[in-house]
């Protein structure tokens, strides 16, 4: 059968001020009608460029197709004129984009933009088009399509906008739907909903799906076939099952391992791909992956491997035949959500930790943010970001804190360090009441409590060099001078795995992972007791995340640190934490030892979160706890349990009475009237 989309030896160049950049190199990929193909790659791999090349959208970005052929059911897209092309775009192939918030024109209503698309390609009256648009919006799960038609993009949440964008893409019944990171900007539970929707629609409309993602978890949920991209090349391509069962390229293996963080003992090192993604203008000779490859030989350093076939998979690696084609995820292991017994050293450690004394004690913490009110003198409306939270953090442990965006987890982290004042409640750090001390005492206390920030690009002053950045905390607290200071900075840099020679370089010269190391260096410079890691790895590429997690664990062992690890990637949090607290709309709904939380979640919300973790084995797609709806943001406080609107188990009692956190079993606490235990 002839493929629907046929990409042959596609090469794309970008003209930049610094010369020509070879963004894609001889990429070949085919998609059959009705098939779902995922292109997986990290930032800078060229995956988005590949998708834009198919739509021929590169011209406006100074990119050009220098070689190769792209055909849509035999139609050579590369030779079409602009107006012929426009008749194909949006009609026969449609695209949805990464950031739904940015992909709609903010000054027109959703309805206008949908009707505009429909009427561009179909000869339909305005009212017929409106009707069609509304029915599409209803189909993609927007609760009130008629209302949504009249709304502006700014009035909808990211998840709803992504649904609207899908509706727009479907409006003319395309044969091929290209989705560029369609869920990356969304929360976990929403992400799962959108992927499910895409998969359903793909079947219903009988279209092919070309999904671009950095996340193997997403690929596992959707793909029939997966292609892995690295530095502008496809390094491996195989049916999804085959790829997860027998990844042949070392990069694929590394990526899968980093993406799923197989259920290992806490404290055990994660397998990580060393190094970082190469610059396109300085690609290595030979195999582009060899500098990061553990199996690299002289041959790999000299010549680029050709693509060869192995029982259904195509691999570009000199050693593909020699490497064991074994899954990095041993099949003996049960799926994550039902994983393992409670034995092992993990428990031992945890018990030891639970006997440790409390480092942090939080009692009844509240944080309200005022909303800008129209006129002075009127009572101000508030948003309650943290709503009566109490817990303790023990000396030497890692407490994980998970929740969707807007759950208040980052606010809670900042409150603990008193980077923001709490509205009410008390905070004890060892024996000091942090809420009761003055500014200068607090500044001195900061020596013991530090923070690692989410955004490795924004959290370093671009005008300071590494030496100055790492030296800043030393200046503030130790007043070290000259050689002493320099020596100390070098020590710290070495501890986070950076070469001391980088001292005179500026943040923009580093990759994301290296910048995060600089951020960590600042945090540990003063030998703190407690560190808040606020989404410390979320902004990093998958292959780099594992490196940073390993580093954090090393430092914890060496320096006896206590962590509050805030994250939304559940598997990362699970790997690093002794205990995990789950936050939902400003409240902690469950807190329990991390193994136990995954094995037997007590709160329905926790269960739903765990169910939204993708699993590498495409066969394991059981989703018993699909959660519909979106988190609610409102200044009006919902009575009773805030989760009840989305909860399958909600009863009348949940509406009337607010559930308090109570002990269920051993170390496990949950705030639910009908716990699952």
């Amino acid at each position, binding site marked *: 059968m002839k493929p629907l989309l046929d990409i042959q030896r596609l090469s794309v160049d970008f003209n930049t001020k610094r010369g020509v950049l070879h963004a894609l190199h001889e990429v070949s990929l085919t998609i059959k009608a009705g098939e779902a193909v995922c292109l997986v790659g990290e930032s800078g791999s060229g995956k988005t460029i590949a998708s*834009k090349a198919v*739509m021929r*959208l590169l011209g*406006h970005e100074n990119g050009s197709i220098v070689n190769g052929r792209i055909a849509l059911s035999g139609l050579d897209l590369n030779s079409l004129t*602009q*107006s012929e092309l*426009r*008749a*194909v*775009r*949006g*009609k026969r192939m*449609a*695209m949805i*984009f*990464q*950031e739904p918030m*940015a*992909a*709609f*024109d*903010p*000054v*027109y*209503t959703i309805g206008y933009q949908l009707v*505009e*698309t429909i009427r*561009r*390609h179909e000869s339909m009256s305005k009212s017929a088009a409106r009707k069609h648009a509304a029915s599409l919006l209803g189909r993609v799960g927007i609760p009130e399509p008629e209302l949504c038609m009249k709304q*502006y993009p*700014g*009035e*909808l*949440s990211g998840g709803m906008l992504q649904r609207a*964008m899908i509706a*727009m893409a479907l409006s003319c019944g395309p044969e091929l739907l290209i989705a560029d990171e369609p869920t990356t900007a969304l929360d976990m539970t929403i992400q799962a909903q959108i992927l499910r929707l895409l998969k359903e629609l793909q079947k219903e409309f009988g279209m092919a799906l070309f999904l671009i993602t950095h996340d193997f978890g997403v690929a596992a949920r959707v793909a029939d076939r997966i292609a892995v991209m690295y530095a502008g090349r496809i390094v491996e391509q195989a049916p999804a099952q085959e790829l997860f069962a027998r990844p042949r390229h070392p990069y694929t293996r590394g990526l899968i391992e980093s993406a799923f963080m197989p259920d290992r003992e806490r404290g055990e090192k994660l397998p990580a791909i060393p190094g970082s993604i190469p610059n396109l203008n300085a690609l290595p000779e030979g195999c582009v992956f060899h500098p990061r490859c553990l199996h690299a030989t002289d041959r790999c350093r000299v010549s680029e491997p050709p693509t060869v076939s192995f029982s259904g998979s195509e691999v570009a690696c000199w050693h593909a035949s020699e490497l064991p084609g074994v899954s990095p995820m041993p099949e003996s292991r049960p799926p994550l959500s039902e994983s393992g017994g409670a034995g092992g050293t993990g428990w031992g450690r945890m018990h030891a930790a639970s006997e440790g004394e409390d480092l942090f004690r939080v009692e009844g913490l509240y944080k309200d943010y005022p*909303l*800008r*009110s*129209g*006129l002075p003198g*009127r009572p*101000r*409306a508030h*948003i309650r970001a943290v709503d009566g939270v109490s817990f303790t953090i023990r000396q030497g442990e890692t407490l994980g804190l998970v929740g969707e965006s807007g759950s208040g987890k980052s606010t809670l982290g900042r409150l603990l360090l008193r980077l923001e004042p709490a509205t009410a409640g008390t905070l004890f750090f060892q024996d000091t009441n942090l809420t009761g001390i003055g500014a200068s005492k607090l500044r001195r206390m900061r020596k013991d409590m530090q923070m690692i920030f989410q955004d490795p690009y924004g959290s370093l002053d671009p005008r300071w060099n590494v030496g100055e950045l790492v030296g800043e905390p030393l200046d503030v607290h130790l007043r070290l001078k000259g050689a002493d200071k320099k020596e100390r900075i070098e020590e710290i840099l070495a501890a986070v795995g950076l070469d001391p020679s980088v001292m005179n370089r500026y943040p923009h010269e580093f990759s994301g992972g290296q910048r995060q190391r600089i951020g960590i260096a600042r945090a540990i410079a003063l030998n703190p007791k407690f560190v808040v890691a606020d989404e410390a790895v979320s902004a990093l590429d998958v292959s780099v995340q594992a490196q940073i997690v390993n580093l954090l664990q090393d430092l914890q062992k060496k320096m006896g640190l206590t962590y509050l690890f805030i994250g939304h990637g559940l598997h990362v949090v699970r790997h690093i934490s002794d205990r995990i607290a789950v936050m939902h709309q400003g409240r902690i709904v469950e807190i329990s030892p991390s193994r136990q939380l995954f094995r037997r979640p007590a709160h329905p919300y926790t269960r739903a979160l765990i169910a939204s973790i993708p699993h590498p084995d495409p066969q394991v797609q059981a989703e018993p706890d699909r959660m519909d709806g979106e988190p609610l*943001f*409102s*200044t*009006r406080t919902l009575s009773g349990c805030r989760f009840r609107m989305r909860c399958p188990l909600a009863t009348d009692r949940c509406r009337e009475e607010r559930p308090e956190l109570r002990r269920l079993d051993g170390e496990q606490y949950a705030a639910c009237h009908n716990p699952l235990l």
Partner: protein
Amino acid sequence: MVRVVIGRIVSSLLVVVSSSVLVFVIMYLLPGDPIDSMVNVAATPPEVIASLRHQLGVDKPLPQQLADYFGKLLRGDLGTSLLTSEPVLPKIAAQLPPTLELAAVSLAIALIVGLALGVLSAIHRNGPIDWIARFVGLLGISMPNFWSGILLLLVFSIRLGWFPAMGSDGWRTLALPSLTLGLIGAGFLVRIVRNSMLEVMSEPYIVMLRAKGLTERAVMYRHALRNALIPAITVIGLLAGDMLAGTVVMETVFARQGIGRMISDAILSKDMPVVQGVILFSAVVYVVINLLVDLSYSWIDPRVRLRHRTADTGGAIR
């Protein structure tokens, strides 16, 4: 929405009042006595000067003078000119039409030329139109308006004799000064519109619109332009104010009647009531322009309307 508008009007009034207080105080504190410009001080007996001062009220302390001034203002009395003894308000009203004519025509030229060139130059980036637009833009912010006025005068009026060199009646007298002001304004606007268009053209939603198969025309004029106008509106507002200020120079260069001429004469002769009156007038104009800018914002940008709506209800945000 109503509440927001009322709030705006109240704060606008406050601004107008404080700017006239400011001018009053500046004029009071600065050296120089209005009497100097009325009579020859050396040749006038001191009693006469004293009685004149009393008559004008300038011998009272500042707060008293201020109170008097605002008291009269509330009754619609802006005082009388020290030089001609005419009441100020009718004087302004009489001089207003030629000035408004000039400002309006100049603004129209600036808008048409500036918007068209700015948009075309962004769309045809690095093409010939872009070059012209950038050149116009640079000239617009670099040419002294009095000089370009004189050059136009020299060429079109003195050499070619196409337009009269002076006067303020009829469109022929309007052509040169409005062209001078208009083209300079267009230069300012071109720079803003071009930048703003380029900015919008790199937004993700533009790629999305192209991916939907829309024609380049629809993408540019229906979507990019409307978004690019949002930041440009503020500049258009400022430009409208600048046009009025520009009339001061233009009316001198082209010997026209008008408010601009009137205030520069009044300033030079320290005719305080007239200066006060005109500055009050210009503050009112400024405030009105600002209100219009705000209104057109909420007309063109739904996000502003939404913000107002939430400010009103104080209620749920997304």
